[in-house]
């Protein structure tokens, strides 16, 4: 079996998992929620194996590098980290519905990579031939994934809070009553960002360390660096806003969504729209 077949299986699993989670929203049968989680875990295992196999394949071809070097590889890795963080939160807090709002992010990434991006294993250009690539990319993407989860939770928060506001009572009916309470959603949002913020901090620091090692400048205000700092500022604002009264809840959820939008721009927009040193998806 080749790694690209396994990536396809993982993508399909996430699709099925998402559909099961949607069914769970509609039916509210506990077993359905469990099935959704299990299918996503299955996808995750295949996904993990695919990444390892692709790593091995790159050695077989003679290029020999971690599968983190082009846009295809980074998008599939990003999807992997989203499911990883989702799995941790799922196992720890067991709010199955969260899957319905988080798995789609991973599915979207995988589908885009499988259908729209070139999946060839390319040799590394000299600038990327360093172990720092590994540390930098892994920490950044784990941080991004935590923010993706926070964004999914915030969307749930806004839907639920909007419904409750409209109904005028705490008893919102239908699917939305399956959501965790808004208090819990708010708290989970904060927890996800508490995981993401130190990881993003580490990601920025390993990036700076690498730049210093390779070019002698730890900070050069290149657009990618600057955008990662912008994202960092937004989440720092989020953390401080929570300490002051009045910024819990709706405004915190909006700030978390804005933060994730900036994260996505930092990851993709910078390469597609702006120019700079970072080479992912430049072409």
């Amino acid at each position: 079996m080749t790694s690209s077949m396994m990536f396809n299986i993982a993508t399909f699993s996430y699709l099925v998992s998402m559909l099961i989670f949607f069914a769970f929203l509609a039916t509210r049968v506990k077993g359905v929620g469990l099935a959704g989680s299990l299918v996503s875990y299955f996808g995750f295992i295949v996904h993990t194996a695919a990444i390892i196999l692709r790593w091995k394949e790159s050695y077989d071809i003679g290029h020999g590098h971690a599968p983190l070097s082009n846009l295809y590889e980074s998008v599939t890795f990003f999807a992997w980290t989203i499911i990883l963080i989702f799995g941790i939160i799922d196992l720890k807090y067991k709010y199955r519905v969260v899957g319905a709002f988080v798995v789609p992010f991973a599915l979207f990434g995988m589908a885009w990579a499988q259908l729209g991006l070139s999946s060839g294993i390319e040799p590394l250009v000299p600038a990327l031939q360093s172990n720092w690539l590994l540390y930098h990319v892994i920490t950044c993407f784990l941080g991004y994934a935590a923010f993706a989860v926070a964004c999914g939770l915030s969307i749930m928060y806004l839907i639920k809070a909007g419904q409750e506001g409209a109904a005028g009572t705490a008893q919102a009916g239908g699917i939305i009553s399956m959501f965790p309470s808004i208090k819990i959603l708010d708290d989970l949002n904060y927890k996800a960002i508490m995981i993401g913020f130190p990881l993003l901090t580490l990601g920025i620091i390993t990036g700076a360390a690498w730049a210093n090692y390779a070019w002698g400048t730890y900070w050069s205000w290149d657009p990618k660096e600057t955008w990662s700092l912008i994202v960092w500022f937004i989440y720092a604002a989020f953390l401080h806003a929570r300490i002051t009264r009045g910024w819990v809840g709706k405004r915190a959820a909006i700030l978390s969504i804005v933060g994730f939008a900036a994260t996505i721009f930092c990851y993709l927009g910078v390469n597609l729209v702006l120019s700079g040193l970072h080479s992912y998806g430049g072409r």
Partner: protein
Amino acid sequence: MTTSNRGFLQALWDFFCSLKLAIFLLILLAATSIIGTIIPQGQLRPEYLQTISETKLKLYSTLGFFDMYHSWWFMLLLYLFTVNIVACSIKRLPRVWKIISEPTLIMTDSFEKSLSVTHDLRLEGDTVTLRDRMVAFLKAEFAAPVVTEHDGEFHLFAQKAPYSRLGVYVVHLSIVVIFIGALIGSFLGFKGYVNITEGGSVSSVQTFSGQRIDLGFTVKCDDFKVSFYDTGAPKEFKSLLTVMDNGRVVIDKRPVIVNDPLTYKGITFYQSSYGQDEAGGIFYFTVRDRKGGTPVKVSAGYGEKKLLPDGSTMQVLEATQEVSQFVPQFSGPAARIEVTPKGGEPVSFIVFKNFPAFDEQRGGALVFTYDGSDEKMYTGLQVAKDPGVWVVWTGCFMMVAGCCMAFFMSHKRIWVRVRKGHVTIGGGASKNPAGFQLMFDEIVDKLKKQ
């Protein structure tokens, strides 16, 4: 000092201590930083004028948008931000320090009401027995308590990880440390570049701000090599550098590649670019008449016109060590030459060193083969000295450690009040109240089962 003066200073201090200012500054920094990612930084006037009008150029340049991260207003924002962090931390630290160093040891009734979790238990035994039992229990299940006697009751206080409360201040201090490191680097360090031709050496470099800096030693480039993948993408740029200090070789032919720089006396050389030293190269060809006769060897410099035996002339237009980047079907060195037959029109074509028979297919009167060149390459090195970089890394380490302390550790406290036949437990945590509640319930359960 007049009262109004003091009032003003107090207001200023309060202003800088405010968390609202911090949130405002963070969002403002995020928003303004976008400008410099959209407008290219540090280009020349004509380059800007290709995309924007003269009026816009004037406006942007007045606002400092072309070097905006060093503009006065962005710097001002960063300084305000630093003052904000320092003031805010100074204001709050003493209170936090007091919580750590002078904990409340006695749980009065009113204090009990302020705690997030409490539990009452009826237990057999007189106060002294109960006290000893509770001390042993807390020690085993949580942490060793401090015992205080008050009005005939015993009060126990135990805590875990009190220093985690300082995590936030470690993070805030780390930002100041990083700023200091950056300032040290900008005042005591430099960034520059130097090109060294193979076989050549330098003892000074040019900084990006246009100064010449004496290195105090000599760097020689013994050799430069670039290699390519089959696809034509570059694989490795490698310079062999030798450092001589006071006439003595201190570093001998050390390979320097991208991602593996050379450092000597605090100055670091990074492989960054390369090129062909246009002045020096000589190219070698063999020319023979299609109709026969002995082949002739010809050597020519760049742009140099050479007379050939049949009266035509040739000259080298361009050459490369690796042609596959331009003509993917071929590999190896190649040269584009221009040949002007006597009284005819010039023709230009490419000859390949690895494909000596190729030029026969062209059908010209003369057949050329390319024998290679002894062109000189130059290596382009970035040169940097930054004595502040260790301060920056220290700050970064503090930031990560502080974040972990602030987010993943929690100052947990438990108080116990022992009256005759009656024990009250209360507690609280600085983080994650739900997690603390679980732990607290477990502890109470264990006590009940004892």
